[in-house]
């Protein structure tokens, strides 16, 4: 007998409180980047920094057919000018991924533009753009230590986790960068954010090379290089604000693919009839190793600390009340385990275990990862020949909780999303206290779905084209309904403008798919994370075993 496990209900999974509990997994983009590129050749091509570490560096990633390059520009920055906020105009370093090896002319062109970031221009020969600031505390400590011939304090390095943190990584046509369509058929980047992940990985190597270089110039006879094991324990930090949140609303088809693939992985694992002891042992091993990351998770955020405490409690409960007595002698072992977890743990614990359940199954995950991209244009057209009754029924099926929400009360309409004039970045404001609500972005999905459902009630099975003509203000939301009809995980089933909205849940959802760790909320609107901590270094990437995240 085989069992047919259903995908989990989108109306439960797509709640922000649940999505905000997602963790990195084998599906995460950092890990799939390393799996994809581990057999490519990584090289330092140019390293022209002065004694203080300012100048230009180029790293290349090549196989027989193609080369990508990271071009780095490190510049002097006064402490007073260093800011991670998007309104900053100068950074310690700026980076770009160039398609191929850059010529001298390319480097000169990029030197004029890349450090300016949003006000500079890239070309179709560039694929991703970024900037980063030093963690001054760690950076200076590392330079001082290395130049004095000693290794830096491991505890400090582990606690912070990086030498630099990026404050934005742009791709896909922004600021003149190549449009996605130009490169989308390249198999090595057939996964979301591959180029961005490449950029961050190469930036990490630059940070190590830069500190070694500065320490050596400072004290040529005495300095030592940063220990390789310490280097591995350093990643790249990232400060992420609200810019990331609307992305997951604005890309419903892509969001669906990410969540669907995760749900499909869980379904296939729960359907395994006979689980091998080796697979179960692997799960237990990574559960044990992963606790190190949980225990090293430091934040001053009360919100996050409650979640970390919940997670620790869940893991303990799982180990003591379930795992210690379990053997894989029953059929559909994972299904039973999942059911226990769902019944007994909080969302933090459930999603943590779901991520870990994927670890033994390369065969399942490797087939699913290529499905994590989406051709969004395929879902753009509205089937205007359908009827208003059909649309109404579709809404009732796809959005049962949202159409029950009450938008006549202020609490449900508390916030609005807008684009700031200064940096063209998304922001969130109180509708009743701040100006600009008339320029609201179309991100109040739940409110507009409810409005659409109400207005459809006054139509009697009429052609949708008529409805669209008479209700042009709802065209964007009609489009979404048809996307969700085909792609059930495309929509966050929550109110994105209510007073209880926690935008960092949206950020965490996206960052968990990136593979970020150590979510450190600094408010309800921005957070810091760490990427590639524990990852193999550039010279040893071909030996990577995909479990580096637990190192």
């Amino acid at each position: 007998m085989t069992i047919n496990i259903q995908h989990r209900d989108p109306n439960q999974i797509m709640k922000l409180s649940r999505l905000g509990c997602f963790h990195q997994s084998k599906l995460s983009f950092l890990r799939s980047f390393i799996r994809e590129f581990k057999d490519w050749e990584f090289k330092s091509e140019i390293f022209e920094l002065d004694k203080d570490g300012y100048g230009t560096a180029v790293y290349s990633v090549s196989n027989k057919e193609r080369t990508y390059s990271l071009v780095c520009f490190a510049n002097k920055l006064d402490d007073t000018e260093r800011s991670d906020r998007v309104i900053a105009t100068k950074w310690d370093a700026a980076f770009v991924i160039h398609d191929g090896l850059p010529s001298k002319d390319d480097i000169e062109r990029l030197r004029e533009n890349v450090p300016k970031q949003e006000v500079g221009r890239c070309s179709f020969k560039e694929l991703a753009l970024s900037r980063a600031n030093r963690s001054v505390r760690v950076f200076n400590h590392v330079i001082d230590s290395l130049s004095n011939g000693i290794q830096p304090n491991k505890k400090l390095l582990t606690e912070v986790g990086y030498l630099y943190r990026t404050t934005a990584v742009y791709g896909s046509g922004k600021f003149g960068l190549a449009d996605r369509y130009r490169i989308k058929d390249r198999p090595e980047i057939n996964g979301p954010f591959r180029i961005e992940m490449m950029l961050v990985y190469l930036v990490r190597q630059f940070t190590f090379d830069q500190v070694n270089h500065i320490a050596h110039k400072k004290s040529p006879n005495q300095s030592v290089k940063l220990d390789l094991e310490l280097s591995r324990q350093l990643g790249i930090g990232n400060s992420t604000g609200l810019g990331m949140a609307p992305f997951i609303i604005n890309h419903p088809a892509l969001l669906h693919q990410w969540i669907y693939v995760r749900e499909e992985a869980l379904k296939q694992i729960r359907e395994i009839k006979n689980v091998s002891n080796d697979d179960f042992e692997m799960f237990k091993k990574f559960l044990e190793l992963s606790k190190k990351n949980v225990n090293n998770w430091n934040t001053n955020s009360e919100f996050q600390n409650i979640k970390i405490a919940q997670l620790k409690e869940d893991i303990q409960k799982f180990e003591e009340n379930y795992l210690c007595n379990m053997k894989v002698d029953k059929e559909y072992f994972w299904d039973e385990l999942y059911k226990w977890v769902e019944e007994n743990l909080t969302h933090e614990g459930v999603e943590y275990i779901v991520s870990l359940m994927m670890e033994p199954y390369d065969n399942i995950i490797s087939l699913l990862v290529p499905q994590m991209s989406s051709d969004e244009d395929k879902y753009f057209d509205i089937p205007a020949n359908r009827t208003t009754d059909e649309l109404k029924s579709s809404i009732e099926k796809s959005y049962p909780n949202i159409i029950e929400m009450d938008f006549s009360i202020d609490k449900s309409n508390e916030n609005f999303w807008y684009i700031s004039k200064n940096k063209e970045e998304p922001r969130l404001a109180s509708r009743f206290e701040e100006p600009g609500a008339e320029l609201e972005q179309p991100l109040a999905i739940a409110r507009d779905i409810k409005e659409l459902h109400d207005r459809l009630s006054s139509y009697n099975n009429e052609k949708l084209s008529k409805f669209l003509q008479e209700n042009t203000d709802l065209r964007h939301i009609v489009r979404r309904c048809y996307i969700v009809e085909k792609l059930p995980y495309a929509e966050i089933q929550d109110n994105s403008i209510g007073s209880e909205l926690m935008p960092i849940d949206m950020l965490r959802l996206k960052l968990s798919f990136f593979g970020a760790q150590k979510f450190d909320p600094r408010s309800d609107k921005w957070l810091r994370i760490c990427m590639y901590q524990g990852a193999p270094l550039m010279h040893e990437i071909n030996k990577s075993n995909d479990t580096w995240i637990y190192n």
Partner: protein
Amino acid sequence: MQSSSEINTVSKRAARAAGYSWGIAEEVGKCISSIEMFGIRGVENLNNYFKTIKDIKPEGPKQIEENNKLNDKSLCPIYTGLKLIDDYKSVDKIKTLKFIKLDYPLLLLPFINKLSYLIGKRIQVTIDEINAECNLNTCILADHKIKSLIIKKANTVIITILENEDNFSSKTWNELYEISTETFVEETEQSKQTGAGAGLQDND
């Protein structure tokens, strides 16, 4: 050079600022980036059009008919284009449609190209003296000069749905077919017996 993504985003936001709803603005963004890729001056035409509608409320046809016009003003290419794609089934029945006085008619082309895709047929477009053909949203064939044009207003725009017909003779087809058969292997008695799966008679 502006990327296609930037053209899409800026056109969308500009359309919203010009008074169109977000849903319509999304369509405008896609359309402008698509005709720019065909080399037609979508951004220039759109920018000029938005300047002209600052003080007027643009309108499209209420219904798609054989002859379409507004009594007192010109048709808006965006609302007209949307009406065409939303009512594509009616359009396919009417076959030939005429639009009297239409602003910035080149902005209608990407909608007609989409219309061609939706109904699965090529569409001939005549904008006063200029001819173009939209082909299933994959290309727009037109006189080369169309690439440099900014057309403020068309007196008449005629769109004709072209039926799916061969544009070669059956003689030509047969000749080409004969050549293609030279890739085939002659059948033998043995190949009849063993070359395919099923039996020679399958009466069971």
